[in-house]
Every structure is written in C-alpha cells, then in structure tokens.
C-alpha cells in the first residue's frame, strides 16, 4: 500500500460537488471530499434515500413510526432528521407520523431521573408536537400486554429481573448477544403495545458492519442481510435502519457542524468489558482503521447485504427468540444462549 504521499495530494483539494475548497471527507479520505455545505447535504441525502429507495412510506396507511432515541450521536441525528422532515426544513415532507421512544439502559434511579430531566429540555426544541415515551430496556421482560405510562420511565420495576437475567448468562459473547436480542424484544413489545408497526432505530454503518462480523461468528451467516440492511420485517412489526449507510464519523461531523450534538445525552461508558467475540470484532476493525483501511466496514456491509439464505426452513419458520430463518423453532445460537443462562430466559421464549 502506498499511502505515504496521499496526504499531500489531498491538501488544497476542491469539493467533488462544487468548486469550493474541500473541508471534509467521506469515510475514505481518498475517495471523496466536500465543502461544508455539500458534506451536510451528502449525509442528509444518505438518510433520505435509504427510506425512499425502499418506498417505506409509499402507502397512506401505517405511517405511525416509533423513533428510537438512545442519547447517542446517531440517535440525536435521527431525531433531528425526522424533526427537519416534518417541518419541511430540508426535504419535501416525509410521510411519517412519529412517536419518540426514549430507550434507557441506565440502572441507577438518579441517572434515570437525569435522563428524564434532559428529555424535558430536549423536547422543547425538537419534535415538540409529537408524543414522547420513556422506556427502559427492561420492558423486554414484560408479558405481552402492558400499558405505557406518560411522564415516567416505563419498565423500571423490571430492571432487577433484567439485570439478573443478563448476569445469569455465563459466557460473555452470549451475554452480549442476549442483550442485543432482548433490545429487539423490548422494541417489539413497546411497538405492539402502542399498535405501531414500524420502528426506526439509530444503528449506523459502523454498528452494522461490526454486527455483521459478530453474526457470522455466531453462525447466523444466512440471516445477516436482513440484520444489517434498511428494512427488517418481523412477524408483527418492521425494524427500519435509515442510518445504515452513514458512518459514525460522518454523523459526528454532521452533528458538530449543525450544532445538534448538544442534544446528545452523555453517559460515561464502562471500560471493564470482558473479552468476547464482539470486543474482538471491535479491536479488529479498530486496527484496520488505524492502519488506514477505511473501507472495511463498507466492504463488509455491501457483501453482507448480498448474503441470503437459500435453504430456509420449511414454511418460512423463524427462531422464536431472535427471528432468524431456521428449520427448528429455535436457532442453534439461541439454544446455546439458553443453555448457559438461568431459568428466567425460558419464560421469554
């Protein structure tokens, strides 16, 4: 790889869309560079075209959509895109009827109260005329029927059950995967309880590229296409990932330039993660990016999008827990998770 002189090559470049000086690059600094206006437009277009390509809001019905806000930079970006679309700031009107779902993962009551306070502030200026609900990931532990309450964090009474369940899983890799599947369960249960069929999540390209590798390692290769692309139809609702083509770096720069990163909710991360397939994937991608292989994620995602399962189980049967296509009612990964997790999990299958 000859990388030595490309840095100087970029010095003084013009925007690829207009004749202004380039100030920002896409994921790969060798491939595209933009002036500030064109950069912002490029990121917005990626969001918008992910939705229009799949014609998700073509029908007049089913415009009700849960917009997941988790306080991250991608969650903040998603919130503002929906806000701008409703107010027709950037595009022609997007036919979506949003309900914001603030998804909380913190477990201390004081921290949860802090989040509720911040939300009160944020919704004064973003999506101020739509319904907001706050719910904890522990809502995944509810039985099918539960009523969401306003102005408080739903699911707090299930936090100890939830923590107990996660802690009972003895293998770190399976524990992280269990958290991922429970998050989907949580979204599904909340959407169903509100009679909403669509749910937009803020997963960005970096998240999804790592997920694709994780899922290959977990033996779910045949299903990774649905897990990492825009639309993911489930039996009773649809997950939509409109940020699947946008990198974390693009989101961070966009949020900075548009001065919306003030709406992130910053939470200190725990650094004491046990080694798992997922942490190894993170380290692997990190190393490649540090060595300037910027296109890894893009390559993984475009490959993953093409992988489909040709020998699906009879009559489209799906794993009752994680929803991948399998011949049996539970996929082998979920069986393995169940084997190393306490009894609480059986209640959820």
């Amino acid at each position: 790889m000859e990388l030595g002189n490309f840095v100087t090559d970029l010095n003084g470049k013009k925007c690829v869309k207009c004749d202004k000086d380039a100030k920002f690059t896409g994921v790969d600094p060798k491939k595209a560079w933009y002036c500030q206006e064109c950069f912002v437009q490029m990121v917005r277009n990626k969001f918008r075209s992910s939705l229009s390509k799949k014609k998700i809001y073509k029908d007049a019905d089913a415009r009700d959509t849960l917009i997941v806000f988790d306080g991250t930079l991608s969650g903040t970006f998603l919130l503002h895109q929906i806000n701008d679309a409703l107010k027709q700031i950037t595009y022609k009107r997007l036919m979506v009827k949003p309900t914001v779902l603030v998804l909380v993962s913190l477990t201390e009551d004081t921290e949860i109260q802090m989040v509720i306070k911040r939300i009160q502030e944020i919704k004064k200026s973003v999506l101020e005329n739509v319904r907001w609900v706050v719910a904890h990931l522990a809502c995944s532990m509810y039985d099918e029927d539960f009523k969401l309450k306003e102005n408080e964090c739903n699911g707090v009474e299930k936090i100890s059950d939830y923590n107990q369940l996660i802690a009972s899983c003895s293998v770190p890799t399976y524990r992280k995967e269990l958290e991922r599947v429970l998050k989907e369960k949580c979204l599904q249960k909340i959407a169903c309880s509100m009679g909403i069929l669509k749910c937009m999540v803020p997963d960005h390209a970096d998240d999804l590229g790592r997920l694709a590798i994780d899922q290959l390692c977990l033996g779910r290769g045949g299903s990774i296409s649905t897990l990492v692309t825009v639309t993911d139809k489930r039996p009773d609702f649809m997950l939509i990932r409109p940020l699947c083509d946008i990198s974390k770096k693009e989101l961070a720069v966009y949020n900075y330039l548009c001065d919306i990163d003030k709406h992130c909710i910053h939470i200190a991360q725990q650094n004491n993660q046990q080694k798992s397939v997922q942490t190894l994937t993170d380290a692997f991608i990190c190393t490649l990016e540090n060595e300037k292989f910027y296109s890894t994620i893009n390559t993984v995602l475009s490959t993953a999008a093409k992988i489909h399962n040709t020998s699906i189980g009879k009559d489209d049967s799906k794993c009752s827990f994680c929803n991948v296509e399998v011949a049996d009612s539970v996929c082998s990964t979920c069986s393995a998770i169940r084997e190393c997790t306490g009894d609480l999990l059986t209640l959820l299958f």
Partner: protein
Amino acid sequence: MSTIPVTIDFSGGAEFLVKAKAQKVQIPADSTLRDVLKFVRDNLVTDVHRINMLLNDDASEVAHGVITLINDTDTGLLLEYDTVIEAGDTITFVSTLHGG
C-alpha cells in the same frame, strides 16, 4: 520563546474530559497539531482517568474515534499531525466515543 493565541474546542462528549468546552490559550509558535496534543494532555485534560478516550498513551495521536479539525477542516485534508498551527486557529476535537 514566542507564543501564538489559538482556540481549542472540544465537542461530541470530549468536553467532559477537560476544563471547558472552548478555551483560548497560548501555544508555542511553530507548533504542529502533534505538539497541540501534548499541550492538551499537559494543560487541559482534567479527567486523567479517561484521557484514553481523547489521546493515545504517549499523546502522539488522538484516540480511535476522535476527529480533529483545524478551522473546521478535517486534518485528513491538511497535513494531519504535521499541520503547522497558525495564530488565531481553532483546533476542534470531536469525539464519537460517548453517548448511550
């Protein structure tokens, strides 16, 4: 040794690791971006336990996931760490590591 005035700005969560979000400081003339990283480590970082979220071990580079801008231009389009800082420049650190 002569010094030049610059503004160092922290964003995207990086502001919680330092005294203030935007700071006007004097740095030695002819400093490069790499010199600024050491200046930040030695003078601005207050949360020393989480300094690894901003800089690598010897402050020779930023941590993975931190973006550096000079006057709102990606340093990848300049001379990266060898970019020479001029009087009045704004150096911005945008973190992608926080949130949740």
